[in-house]
């Protein structure tokens, strides 16, 4: 059984079918790419997979459990975490605290124990600090843990968002254009980091990328969306040589 199974997923905004009849399977440990021209419906797919939008058609399962239409909070707790195309950090909090918010549900001390500084507060806070710093290290952010998130350079903000998502210990990580706004050097480095995350955390990653060359380098399989519909699907090398796909991109 695949980790994520998407079956005929679709959503309508008024008259617009933003995503129509999307079916795909992602196996555990896979690095999977969702590509397509601007406005194809990629982010909308993420919004359905994370409960921001309830699909109007079809559904999806994670580890066999149907999750379509559940709330974002529930879906995160079931094991899907994401980043956003337009970065959404907790800008007025430090880099470290951004990750620690991601660790929130992994700890159990209650409001009373927190306010009165009972032993479990100290123990679990220390565990959170340690874990958060480990995650920051993966992205080379450990030197900036006390920096306000809003004061980080753009590329580092994107990395921090991935670290925060990973803090929730997901089964499936959704990355929405993680390289957007980065220069070629930063992009190459990020791709390396993503592969490292997949290997080191045994993570399954679904990645949206606008730039086809980029995904070619790291994704094993691809789904190409165009005007909300699947244009091509399969092994990366085959999909990227598909004349339909080439036409959709050139015609953009």
């Amino acid at each position, binding site marked *: 059984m695949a980790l994520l199974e998407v079956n005929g997923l679709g959503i309508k905004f008024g008259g617009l079918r933003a995503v129509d009849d999307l079916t795909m399977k992602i196996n555990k440990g896979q690095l999977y790419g969702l590509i397509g021209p601007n406005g194809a419906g990629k982010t909308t797919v993420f919004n359905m997979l*994370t409960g921001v939008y309830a699909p109007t058609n079809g559904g999806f399962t994670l580890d066999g459990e149907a999750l379509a239409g559940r709330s974002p909070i529930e879906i*995160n707790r079931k094991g899907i975490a994401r980043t956003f195309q337009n970065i959404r950090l*907790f*800008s007025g909090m430090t880099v470290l605290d951004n990750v620690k*918010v991601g660790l*929130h549900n992994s700890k159990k001390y209650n409001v009373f124990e927190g*306010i009165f500084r009972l032993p479990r507060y*100290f123990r679990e806070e*220390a565990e959170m600090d340690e874990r958060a710093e480990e995650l920051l290290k993966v992205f080379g952010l450990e030197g900036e843990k006390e920096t306000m998130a809003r004061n980080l350079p753009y590329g580092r903000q994107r990395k921090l968002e991935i670290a925060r998502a990973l803090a929730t210990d997901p089964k499936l990580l959704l990355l929405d254009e993680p390289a957007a706004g980065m220069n070629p050097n930063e992009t190459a480095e990020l791709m390396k980091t993503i592969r490292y995350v997949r290997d080191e955390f045994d993570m399954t990653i679904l990645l949206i990328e606008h730039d086809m060359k980029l995904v070619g380098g790291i994704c094993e399989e691809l789904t190409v969306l165009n005007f909300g519909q699947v244009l091509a699907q399969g092994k990366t090398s085959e999909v990227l040589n598909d004349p339909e796909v080439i036409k959709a991109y050139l015609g953009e």
Partner: protein
Amino acid sequence: MKKIINKKNIIAAAVAVGVYILITVLCSAGLLSRHYQSLLVPIGINVILAVSLNLTVGFLGELTLGHAGFMSVGAYAGCLFTLYSDLPTVIELPLAIIIGGAVAAVFGVIIGIPALRLKGDYLAIVTLAFGEIIRSVITNLDALGGAGGLKGIDKSSGFTSVYILLLITVLVSVTLVDSRHGRAITAIRDNVIAAESIGINVVFYKLLAFVSAAFFAGAAGVLYGHNLGILKPNTFDFNKSIEILVIVVLGGMGSIKGSIISAVIITLLPEVLRGLDDYRMLIYSIVLIAIMIVNNSSKLKAAKEKFIEKIRSGNTPAKEDA
């Protein structure tokens, strides 16, 4: 690892005790005029109100306009309790404070559950309505003394009891903010969608901040009533809510220290300027505007942030970006 006993906490405790001793000595030595002595309780009450309101407005980022309403329901509940009980004061007053806080918190839950679920500034509208409705209900209830006020309350509270509640309020606010629960509250303020995406129970944490604020406002109301000996519904009007909001905004959203300092200044200011007669309100306004400008200057803010980051990261030289 974090510890309870560290340099910062020792200094804070020393300041807390020092301020208390200083004021007590000044009072007993007759160095503080009767007029200024009479301001100690109102200042303390305003600090409690401002610090607690800051939980909702500053840390959660939700505008509420009914803080005086919570103060009044707490005040009436606590004062009615002492009017009808004959326990010794040392037991009665703390019990009254808890009862007043709890009743205000219950109102907080009743108002918060529907209002905080909605997106947008519904909370501001609902709390505004709440404050005004409570005031007119009390005015028309003879059992609560009506417009004439609830009289005969024991004058059992003074600077000491207010100071103790103030310390508790500040302590609880500081520790709440610096916990996983406080971080969840601040995260919701900064980005609700992101907070949901990492599994933060948004409604619960909004309620937690809002209800904690209501609790302390209610508790402050109890001490207010037991200081004056009478409660009049018109004291808790919209202007009082706005006064507290002004204190919080001037002190800086999400700054507990700022709320404390701002509450002291704003409560004292009209009294200090009393001698200036006609110019009083003019100068008062100018000072408010000046504080606001200084506080919101982005250059000053950035400098402050840099400074704090430097201190926190333990004076390691700034690393160059790779």
